């Protein structure tokens, strides 16, 4: 039996086509996912992301606990409300999940993890707390719904639903900061490459909030548009672009691993140091299909007879009107490659991510061949 968010009945009422996503019955689109994609790039859209799991970690030992649990360093979180993107690794350096952690106060951090990994993540966190004998309370906030309001007009639209003082506080948030607004938690984060907010709010308030945003011109958007938006924005999807068998360095996530200070011991550190020392680490990169067709995960990348790797994600880019994807390739892969699509080799280019930020194309095709 698929799990349902508190907004399930509203999605059906709005005509959504529903699909299974990580065990949840979720809206993939409300008509045209390409239209929904453009709405977010050009104006504003709203997504139900209540299937994601909000976890509050409280207690005196919380900072020490997270410092050891996460590959990024929570010591970077000094101002209340500041958010940090991090991987949670196993001892082999494999990515158990990617998450956002918010610093609320010295005894309270909030973590948002993926839907498909929520049960395993909670079990892992609790087992580590017990193993390390740290006194922290780990609470799954099933009482909260989560909405993502994204696009150039999104922040104003959401802020208009807040009280005057909260409105000012929310609009004053810098990127990757959040604040409490009454019973809501509003953060300037997202998964689309556009400005916007992610909002955690009591479940009963999700439906009237959604309707109010629709009335203000914010379009209902499904997971289909969410996927093409994150792909254009160069953001990884857990389970596609990384998983427990892949470490962050080969998943385009080296920037999220804090190896300094050298004396911070975190789960997976030794494995990552060994991988880095041995060299020749594969890389995750953007791929642009030069001709017609559609890139998909698991298509193979070739240069002449040598196979260099495969696509981890692929789709059609509504903004660029061509097919784009991510691929994990050997470190010495040239930038001009071929992709095997149903037995045909089609020319493609490896490009630096992201493809699109804030509505604009932002990569360049290298003018000459180089091995990077």
């Amino acid at each position, binding site marked *: 039996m698929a799990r349902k968010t508190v907004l399930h009945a509203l999605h059906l009422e709005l005509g959504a*086509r529903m699909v299974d996503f990580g065990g949840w019955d979720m809206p*993939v*689109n409300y008509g*045209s*996912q*390409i239209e929904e994609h453009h709405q977010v790039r050009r104006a504003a859209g709203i997504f139900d992301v209540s299937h994601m799991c909000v976890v509050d970690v409280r207690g005196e030992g919380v900072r020490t606990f997270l410092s050891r649990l996460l590959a990024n360093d929570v010591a970077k979180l000094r101002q209340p409300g500041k958010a940090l993107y991090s991987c949670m690794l196993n001892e082999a350096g494999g990515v158990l999940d990617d998450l956002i952690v918010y610093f609320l106060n010295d005894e309270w951090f909030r973590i948002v993890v993926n839907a498909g990994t929520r049960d395993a993540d909670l079990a892992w966190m609790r087992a580590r707390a017990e193993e390390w004998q740290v006194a922290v309370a780990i609470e799954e906030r099933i009482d909260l719904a989560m909405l993502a309001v994204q696009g150039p007009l999104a922040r104003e639209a959401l802020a208009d639903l807040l009280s005057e003082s909260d409105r000012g506080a929310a609009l004053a948030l810098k990127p990757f900061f959040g604040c409490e607004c009454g019973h809501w938690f509003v953060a300037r984060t997202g998964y689309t490459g556009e400005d916007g907010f992610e909002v955690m709010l009591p479940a009963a308030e999700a439906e009237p909030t959604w309707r109010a945003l629709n009335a203000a011109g914010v379009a209902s958007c499904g997971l*289909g548009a969410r996927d*093409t938006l994150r792909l254009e924005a160069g953001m990884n999807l857990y389970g596609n672009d990384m998983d427990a068998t892949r470490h962050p360095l080969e998943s385009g996530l080296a920037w999220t691993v804090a190896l300094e200070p050298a004396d911070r011991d975190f789960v997976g550190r030794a494995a990552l140091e060994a991988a880095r020392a041995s060299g020749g680490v594969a890389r995750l990169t953007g791929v642009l299909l030069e001709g*017609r*067709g*559609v890139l*998909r995960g698991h298509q193979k990348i070739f240069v002449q007879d040598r196979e260099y790797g495969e696509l981890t994600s692929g*789709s*059609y880019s*509504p903004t660029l009107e061509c*097919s784009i994807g991510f691929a994990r390739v050997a470190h010495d892969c040239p930038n001009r490659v071929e992709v095997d699509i*149903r037995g045909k080799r089609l020319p493609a280019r490896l490009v630096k991510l992201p493809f699109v930020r804030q509505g604009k194309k932002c990569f360049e095709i290298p003018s000459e061949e180089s091995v990077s």
Partner: protein
Amino acid sequence: MSQVPAELKYAKSHEWVRVLSDGRVEIGITDHAQSALGDLVFVDIPEVGRELAAGEACAVVESVKAASDVYTPIAGRVVESNAELATAPEQVNQDCYGSGWLLRLEPASADELAGLLSAEAYTELLAAQGN
């Protein structure tokens, strides 16, 4: 509710067949199929002259979400493919029984048409599949 025009024949795999006045047949995907796929962004159609067996995978329609094979409901030789879909695949979403047709065949045998589903039978099939 999906549209199922009464004058067409259907295959269980969600293609439709129209018999043209010159005896050739036109093939496309049904309203149910285009709706399930979502926004189409690429259509790969067979070359003119190719001989197809009944049930053979003859085209690929790709939406943002996924690629899906199209199977020819009857055998025949491809005499025309819809070139406009190369630059406007969305026509399959907008008008799947009209400008969104995929290919035209010179059928190997007129008898095969009798084995296809009527509009009524295809509607029942959709209902039985929970649509």
